[in-house]
């Protein structure tokens, strides 16, 4: 399956002679050497990511890891020093200004950490903005904006100004604006990071609900691992401008590639994140204490077993039986394992 968005060998170096620095970095120069010897800052190095259609790809890293820089390369708000960005097979790097604007209007919309709404426009006008930029006729602008505002729960707030809304509601406007643009790809730059924890949970729920219905290709940036694990279909972990592991979040949790990720996942409530599917083994017996869905969390299973660690459950996926899970294996899976030595990702 060809990915919707593909990033190939992307490098970003900040400084006046960034292109000349690329071979040095490819030759193995580190971030601190580059800064000391050449006075250039290494932003991103050798990034390769495939983002599949209708999936949520989460790029996670701490501040300074380059994640916000990376997402801005997708719509070329930042120009890379080297590399390709393919969207539906088309290299964004080769586009002229007008084509680039067209792709920003029609293919990608963006949600921002600080909302970035127009303060002098009403909520309704803010949601209409992408459509009016596209030149859609006025009646359609109004109805589309109204529809998406209602969809994110902002019925009746159309005539307010952004400053009159709470942070969570402002970000709902931001999401409605991005949805109104009617693009396949949605870029979300730390979209929920500025919100209170409870509102953040609400917004994550809203995103997952919308995603189930709309099947967009979402690229989501966060520094919060809990958030990443909750919404990711594909997780990319970034450190110092390089990818250190990417893949299915369950796999990363069970087999961290690197002490850095190991430390990261150490604090996670694994029972809530891990699913039965990731821990189950092949069917080897025929007497079971019960049955559990492959997509249930381990927490749900512990609850079902009432904490009894001697039981074994049959795992089903819809109608089919796909394996079994012993409560003993479950308990083992709850303890973080040391990082595996061989590098699985690169």
């Amino acid at each position, binding site marked *: 399956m060809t990915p919707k968005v593909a990033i190939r060998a992307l490098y970003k170096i900040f400084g006046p002679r960034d292109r000349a620095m690329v071979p040095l970095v490819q030759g193995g120069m580190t971030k601190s050497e580059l800064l000391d010897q050449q006075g250039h800052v290494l932003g991103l190095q050798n990034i390769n990511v495939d983002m599949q259609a209708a999936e949520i790809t989460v790029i996670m890293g701490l501040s300074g890891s380059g994640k916000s820089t990376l997402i801005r390369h997708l719509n070329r708000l930042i120009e890379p020093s080297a590399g390709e960005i393919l969207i539906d097979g088309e290299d964004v790097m080769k586009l002229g200004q007008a084509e680039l604007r067209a*792709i*920003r209007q029609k293919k990608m919309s963006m949600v921002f950490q600080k*909302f970035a*709404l127009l*303060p002098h426009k009403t909520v309704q006008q803010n949601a209409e903005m992408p459509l009016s*930029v596209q030149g859609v006729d006025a009646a359609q602008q109004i109805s589309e904006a109204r529809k998406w505002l209602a969809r994110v729960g902002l019925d009746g707030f159309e005539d307010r100004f952004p400053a009159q809304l709470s942070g969570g509601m402002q970000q709902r406007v931001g999401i409605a604006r991005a949805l109104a643009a009617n693009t396949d790809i949605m870029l979300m730059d730390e979209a929920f990071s500025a919100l209170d924890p409870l509102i953040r949970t609400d917004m994550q729920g809203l995103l997952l609900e919308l995603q189930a219905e709309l099947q967009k290709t979402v690229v989501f940036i966060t520094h919060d691992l809990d958030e990443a694990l909750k919404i990711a279909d594909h997780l990319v972990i970034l450190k110092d401008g390089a990818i250190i592991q990417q893949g299915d979040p369950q796999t990363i949790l069970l087999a961290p590639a690197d002490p850095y990720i190991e430390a990261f996942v150490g604090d996670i409530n694994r029972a809530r994140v891990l699913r039965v599917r990731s821990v189950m083994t092949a069917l080897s017996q025929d007497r079971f204490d019960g049955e559990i869905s492959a997509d249930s969390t381990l927490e749900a299973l512990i609850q079902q077993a009432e904490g009894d660690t001697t039981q074994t459950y049959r795992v089903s996926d819809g109608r089919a039986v796909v394996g079994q899970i012993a409560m003993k294996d479950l308990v083992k899976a709850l303890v973080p394992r040391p990082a595996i030595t061989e590098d699985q990702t690169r």
Partner: protein
Amino acid sequence: MAGYDGVFDTLGLRDWCDQDKTDAPMSMAQLLAQSGGATEKAPLPFPSLDALHDSCARIAQTRDVTQGLEDGFLSIRPELKLVLDPITQPLSWLLDGALFLFETTPWWLMIPLLVIIAYVVSRSRPVTGFVALVLLFFGLIDHYEVAMQTLAIVFVCTGLSVLLGVPIGIAMSKSDTAQRMIVPILDLLQTLPTFVYLIPLIFLFSVTESKIYGIAVIVYAIVPVIRLTDLGIRLVDQDVVEAANAFGMTPGQKLTRVELPLALPNIMAGVNQTIMMSLAMVVIASMISAPGLGVLVLRGIRSLDLGVGIVAGLGIVLLAVILDRVSKAALARIDTHRNEQ
């Protein structure tokens, strides 16, 4: 002889200095020196142009420099006039037209009209009421006509300053090179004493033309609107500009939909300053034929007519207050719904 003779002698420049020496005395000081040596020179004067000239006739005197500057200006004056006259001619028409309009419109039409304008701009009853009171007061003390003349000039000059200043400010905000080039000019315009503008203008244009004071006022008053437009656009929240880019706005859409609206409070603050400064300059420009309240102030100074000068001066203050209140109220109106929270 003067103190620097030795210097030129040792440098071997004596012949060059004396090449076309005339013995005609050049200045009163020299005359005095020749006639009896009454003035004893200090042993070592500062080596200024004049002191060096005493020792070496080939070196120019200071007054030659100022003379040269004047000659230079006068020599390019015809060309300068050829270029500037047609460009600035519309300014004369505008000023004459506005003065005609403000003077011939009868007061019972003009005053209500101005009050309505004040209300539309400020949307504030107290401010509007104050404007009406001030205008009626001007009528009462028989200063209505001169006040209208001043107002007409301020309106035309402020309008043109905004019309010219905002695009210049936009250009400065978009290009660092433009900013580096224009900022020193603005600094110069702001620090140059206001009377200094008037001198070259008198040489260039006739005082019978309205544009002579129009130019003086605009050149003086345009600075704040340029500066604050530049500042306002540069201060626009970069996150919002990034969002505009991310949704594919063209540079023109970005300017009209995001940057100018968000910079508007700053631009309006600049317009307010421009109004105040053009009012200040209109008074000074009365020395080069600008009509209005300034003429009365000038008459007060010239003929030591204390009462006339002070009444006209206070009239200018009242005019300044209403212009300031109305434009500030407009600014506050723009600001309200952005800062609610």
